[in-house]
């Protein structure tokens, strides 16, 4: 059926009786629970993924590109051999991948605002953070997929995690929690900046120092003192340390606690700010 046929077929006179009965359905259900509203919006995010699977392209290509590039370009120089470096790099590059992908949440939000569906959401009376929480939950699928791509590629390149399956699963859990926490920064930017294009620009600008000034690629011991401080403050470093430890089965409980504290700090600072801007968007 062509688009034209579809339009012709779809326009027919209003059937007053059907319309009346549809309109007279009275009664209003209770306001949805916060969890149920979030799940519904996560469902929406997954539907979009299903309708345009191309979105998964960068989720898979980006980690493959980064892993190959860093392993073969710098592996020898940094760790003496590619095989050695892979053991160090894979955990870090998985964290970097989910951190980068979490930026798409902000893009999506910004697109919603530009389009008008945002007005629909805001004029309904459900738990407001659900729009963001739902989008972030939906993104968990992308994060997991991207992480899986890195794991498999790493394995092919000779990555042999000492933590086994359990270690990998625990590492994945930390990565998801971290990506969720980090997303609040991007969604805040998404609310503050007007067009999806500029959101993309600002978030990618921000993501470079965030990922490179960390312990993802190299051990910070060789860095100047001031940079070591930056690396230590950077939440990405704490997440990377925990993920690396869990994958290799050498994680100290302190590392995991530090990563969780970094995540909590991100949420405590940025979630309220994001919600504030969400609630006052256009209302000022």
């Amino acid at each position, binding site marked *: 059926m062509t688009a034209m046929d579809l339009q012709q077929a779809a326009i027919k006179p209003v059937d007053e009786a059907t319309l009346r009965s549809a309109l007279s*359905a009275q*009664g209003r259900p209770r306001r949805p629970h916060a969890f149920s509203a979030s799940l519904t919006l996560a469902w929406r995010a997954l*539907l979009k993924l299903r*309708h345009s699977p191309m979105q998964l392209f960068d989720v898979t290509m980006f980690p493959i590109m980064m892993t190959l590039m860093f392993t073969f370009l710098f592996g020898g120089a940094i760790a003496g051999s590619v095989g050695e470096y892979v053991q160090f790099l894979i955990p870090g590059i998985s964290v970097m991948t989910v951190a980068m992908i979490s930026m798409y949440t902000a893009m999506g939000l910004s697109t919603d605002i530009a389009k008008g569906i945002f*007005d629909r959401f805001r004029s309904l009376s459900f738990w407001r953070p659900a729009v963001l929480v739902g989008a972030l939950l939906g993104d968990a699928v992308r994060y997991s997929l991207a992480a899986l791509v890195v794991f498999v590629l790493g394995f092919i390149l000779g990555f042999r995690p000492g933590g086994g399956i359990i270690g990998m699963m625990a590492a994945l859990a930390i990565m998801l929690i971290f990506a969720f926490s980090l997303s609040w920064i991007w969604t805040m930017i998404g609310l503050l900046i007007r067009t999806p294009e500029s959101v993309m620009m600002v978030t990618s600008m921000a993501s470079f120092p965030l990922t490179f000034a960390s312990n993802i690629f190299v051990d910070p011991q060789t860095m100047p003192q001031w940079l070591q401080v930056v690396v230590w403050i950077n939440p990405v470093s704490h997440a990377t340390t925990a993920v690396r430890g869990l994958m290799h089965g050498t994680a100290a409980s302190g590392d995991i606690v530090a990563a969780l504290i970094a995540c909590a700090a991100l949420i405590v600072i940025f979630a309220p700010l994001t919600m504030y801007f969400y609630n006052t968007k256009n209302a000022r």
Partner: protein
Amino acid sequence: MESFAVERSAVPSTEYAIEVTNLRKSFGKVEVLKGLNLQVQRGSLLALLGPNGAGKTTTIRILSTLIRPDSGSVRVFGHDVVHAADAVRRRVSLTGQFASVDDDLTGFENLVLVARLLGFSWRQAKTRATELLNAFGLEEASDRLVKHYSGGMRRRLDIAASIVISPDILFLDEPTAGLDPRSRRYVWDIVRTLLNTGTTVLLTTQYLEEADQLADRIVIIDEGTVIADGTIGELKASVGSGSLHIRLRDPLRRPEAERIVAQSLKTAVTLESDPSALSAQVSDPELVASTLTNLSRAGVIVNDFSLGQPSLDDVFLALTGQPAEDQNTVKEVVQ
């Protein structure tokens, strides 16, 4: 339909569904609303007319709690839009100027989404979505992505999404802007049915015809204040019964025709940009016949003439002394 646990909230009873007093709103240095007053009776349809930039959209966005007023009192069923925003949200529904539907989902998914966010169970949401798609003649398009919909279909889906729960008030912001005549009529039919079921409707429009078709009462705003408020009959009476448009065979005879028409109708004549056309306001339709006779006696040949209903332009001309601003040159301040 299944029965729901119905939540009731105490509602201060008022005669008016909407009461706006001395509403002001500025965006930066631009004062968009300068002391707007408005009352809408329960169960009626009020049309808010005005050119772009008059403040129509801003008013509707304030009424639907999307933006806050700077000052003034805005009550919807007695609830204050600032202090009782949630109570207002539960009773109103908005169909914005830009369709508030998700392009990347199907029509069915869009309605399920809204129903779920209103608190329906998955099963109820799907039932309701199907019911609405059928009622709006969209059943065949239900599994298509909305980005492939025509303007009219998208608009209908948008209205359907607004009435997943029948609202007490529906706000329609230029519901037929950019639609072809058939889709426009379809939307009008939907609005009439809504009115028949007791919904109060506030719609904004730039078309007097649309207001004429639907509205119980019309409020005309310009530059952030109300310049006229009345029934369609009252407004038309204020501008006379209409205007006479004449096109001459010979443009050179226009000055002569102008003089004759002005004398016969005892009113000022407007010379149109078309060199052979002229028009004038008519207070008494009886005079039209003698005007045409006088032209014919003077040997001025009239190619065609029409006695039209006053247009929004005529109303504006009568009320403000200037025509409604060019719709394409003035952009409405939305942000």
